[in-house]
């Protein structure tokens, strides 16, 4: 069946991290050439839109940027996130059935607290859209399926304690690739257990095993979760020619997967085989979203029988799927008090490495293990980021479904932190009424933005 598919193509031909960095002007040049040459923009079912510019408030719904949004976020980031917002609005209005944001820079390594750029990402385009959809349209259940070869650790971090956002990531096993996380036991916090699913795959997976994972694990979980909106973090670095990943997926495999996932919105993430993969994979995904025949999209050098999967890889993939199926089936037997040992808070320490600028952040993250709501989150974070030097901040996030007690406690924590001289900045994100507050100790100033 043919569909109406929205496209925002934003290759940012005037922006790069550095001249020879993988995230440079050239990255989507050949994708542009291929998409233009194929004439797909003339197809009646494909509608191209201009990106909009995400506002600081739209970004602050998802992130605590230290010290502020404007210090961490460039115009390029705001446009990439704005592209995804634009498509989500057109989808909600019914003008299009689904959409593809072929944009750079990417975002899935950007976590809730942003001290700098990590894994080529500064802000999380998908999270900005999720918060926009919840606030603007009251959507309750959203799923994000991350199909990048790297673990979507940023997205996982933002929604680790959110039972309303299902995050599923398959990726090359963290023991063999950046960022080194995303194992099967990372399943979300006590109030959001099994709303985070990680499927680590061994190097060498081909189309057949990938589709096995989709059919036997991803689709059944999605079906049970019943999301109202599905976002695909569409990284293209599982391609057999990618210089960073070691997977063996083809353009056909990507298209078939897209057809099965049926995402409402796909947002481009990584993928740095800019000549041998991106032009073909982007084209195949776009055609698949539009319900068009993509069977003639083949990359040069790929012919039947060329790519063969090792049987050990196949067996290993089946084991991982088995293990996660069992976990999923028993998820409801696990209680909040079991997960946090009966204490009031569930807490974890995190060391977060910012690989672009080489510095580390230390975090203590606490979530209120509430039995009647998702709880609120307290993050005590410090880092020596190059921009402002050593700095410690307290960030408080109130889920939009928080109960009265949790809201009151969270605000109390905010007032307490304001008095605590150790925190240079204190932030409060209250999703129940869409306010965002920043307190700066230096001059005792407080800003508030509202949606």
């Amino acid at each position, binding site marked *: 069946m043919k569909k109406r598919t929205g496209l925002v193509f934003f290759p940012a031909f005037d922006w790069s991290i550095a001249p*020879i960095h993988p995230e440079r002007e050239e990255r989507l040049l050949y994708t542009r050439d291929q998409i233009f040459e194929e004439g797909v923009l003339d197809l009646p079912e494909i509608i191209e839109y201009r990106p909009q510019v995400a506002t600081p408030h739209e970004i602050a719904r998802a992130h605590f940027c230290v010290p502020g949004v404007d210090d961490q976020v460039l115009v390029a980031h705001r446009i990439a996130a704005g592209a995804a917002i634009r498509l989500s609005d057109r989808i909600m209005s019914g003008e299009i059935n689904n959409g593809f944001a072929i944009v750079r820079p990417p975002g899935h390594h950007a976590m809730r607290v942003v001290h700098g750029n990590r894994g080529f990402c500064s802000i999380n385009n998908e999270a900005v859209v999720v918060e926009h959809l919840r606030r603007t349209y009251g959507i309750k259940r959203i799923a994000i399926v991350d199909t990048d070869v790297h673990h979507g650790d940023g997205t996982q971090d933002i929604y680790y304690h959110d039972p309303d956002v299902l995050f599923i990531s398959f990726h090359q096993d963290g023991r063999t690739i950046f960022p080194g996380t995303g194992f099967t036991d990372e399943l979300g916090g006590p109030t959001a257990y099994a709303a985070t699913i990680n499927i680590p795959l061994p190097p060498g997976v081909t189309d057949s095993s990938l589709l096995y994972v989709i059919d036997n694990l991803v689709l059944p979980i999605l079906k049970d979760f019943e999301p109202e909106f599905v976002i695909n973090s569409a990284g293209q670095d599982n391609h057999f020619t990618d210089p960073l990943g070691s997977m063996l997926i083809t353009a056909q495999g990507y298209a078939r997967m897209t057809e099965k996932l049926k995402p409402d919105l796909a947002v481009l993430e990584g993928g740095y085989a800019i000549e041998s993969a991106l032009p073909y994979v982007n084209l195949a995904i776009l055609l698949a979203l539009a319900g068009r025949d993509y069977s003639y999209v083949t990359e040069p050098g790929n012919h039947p029988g060329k790519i063969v999967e090792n049987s050990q890889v196949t067996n290993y993939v089946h084991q991982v799927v088995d293990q996660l199926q069992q976990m999923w089936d028993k998820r409801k037997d696990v209680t909040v008090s079991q997960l946090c040992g009966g204490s009031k808070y569930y807490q974890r320490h995190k060391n977060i490495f910012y690989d672009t600028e080489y510095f580390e952040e230390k975090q203590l993250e606490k979530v209120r293990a509430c039995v009647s709501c998702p709880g609120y989150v307290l993050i005590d974070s410090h880092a020596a980021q190059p921009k402002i030097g050593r700095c410690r901040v307290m960030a408080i996030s109130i889920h939009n479904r928080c109960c009265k007690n949790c809201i009151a406690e969270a605000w109390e924590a905010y007032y307490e932190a304001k008095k605590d001289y150790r925190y240079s900045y204190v932030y409060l994100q209250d999703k129940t009424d869409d306010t965002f507050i920043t307190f700066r100790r230096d001059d005792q100033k407080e800003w508030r933005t509202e949606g």
Partner: protein
Amino acid sequence: MYIGIDVGGTCTDAVLLSEGKVRSTAKIYNTPNNLLTSLVQALDSVMKGVSAGDIERVVLSTTMITNLIVERKYDPVGLLIMPGPGRKLEHYRNADVHILSGAIDYRGREIIPVNEEEVLQAIKEFDAKGYNKVAVVGKFSPRNNRHELQVAELVKKHKPHWQVEMGHRAGGQLNFPRRVDTTVLTCATKEKYRYFVQSVNEALKKRDIKAQVFIMKADGGTMTLESSEQSPVETIFSGPAASTLGAQALTAAGETSLVVDIGGTTTDLALILSGKPLLSSKGVMVGDKLTQVRTLAVKSVPVGGDSVVEMVGKELIIYSERMGQPYCLGGPFPTPTDALNVMGLTRLGDKDRAWEAMSRLGKWANMSPVEVAKNIINLVVDTIVKEIENMFLEWEQEPAYRIWEVMQKRRVRPQNVVGVGGGAAGFVPQIAIRIGGTPVLPPYASVANAIGAAVARPTLQVTMRADTEQNIFSIEEDGYQGKINRSPFGFEQALDLAKEWLINKASRMNIGDQMQDVEITRREVFNIVRDLKTTGKIYDICVQTPRGIQWHIGAGGKLI
């Protein structure tokens, strides 16, 4: 002195301009199947008392090729395509098309070679079916034309008398399906267009005019009559472009205007932003074919002075088709023109018949003739205003691929609403009120198209892509591809090369004097990085002659 001639379907309009003033105008009803007579008549009537030696330039616009294509009166063309991997091209799978092996990628590298056996087989089949025109088109041929050249050469070798056109010459932009259609149309119309060129040359010879002769293009520029023979498709939709330029010439320089050309059954809308006509981001669509022909952004609304109006229940409906003249001019049905007559907004036609038309419509709905007329006018204005809003929205929503493009666009609304065409006087003031602009009804509005032709200037554009890793460069407009033979070859050298190309082109067309200020409309540099080493650069550069018109005739006609 300059002459502008617009050869339309029923009329040929002409003007003579001298020092930026209109010396004379003419409207000639065409003699069917005799272009020469119409042209000579038009020339004679504007040139009264003027010697042929004083004419410096003649510019023509014509709907001839547009009509040929829309009415499908062109010759059959056999098509040889090399689409390679990519989209499935369902609609090419018919008898006139042979899909050949051979593929080139986005950087012009060969992926799959041509299979000559297949080409010979295709020639045989075309021959058996009686074809003698063939279009050869490959995907990414603007990046490497080798396959197209190879196939075309084979065809020429076996069939020296066949007409063969190649995609990289006819359609150098990146869009394969549009390249196919543009090449086919070029192939199909060349022979017929020659008749037009011959008639023009003969008419000028008869009146001893030795001036330079140009043809209007859809983008508001001109090309020499001689060079237009290679690309007749470029002349399509030059009529609306001529009208827009005419409106531009008849208003003050540098202003933002909306041009509303209200004709019999359609209203054409065009935009002039700060004195420059807005170009469409996509090529012309003609009939059911999408082409690569650059065009001004003209939007056609299916409503005009002769549209049929009916009362359905208590509601007025305007139909898009024309069923003859307005009722007040002896036609069969009530029209917006009758409404204008009743409201005293036009003197066209018979007053009594106009009132009769309105009261007939109002009878069932219990409305007075004046009420009906008011409602009809409102309905027409509503329809047009809605499309105007859409047009601005579409412009604001045009895709942007660079940060500066996203950040620079502002909301713009026109200062002027310029009315041209028959129905303009009655509607334009009301349209202007609705969108907050000043209504302008310029003098000579009925021959704005011919004025536009006369003031149009030659435009040349050179789009160059150079790839220093492969040491090649190509010129989109000419289908030229060659080796870079200068060293070092940096951005400055690349820009110089593009400019030289433009200047050479201009001198070949004998318009070298217009080359003082070359505009650079695109200057992009991409580092080609492989394995963390910069292995080359891609330069994307576009240079053009300044766009604009020869003269502003004046800023008269403002209704305040």
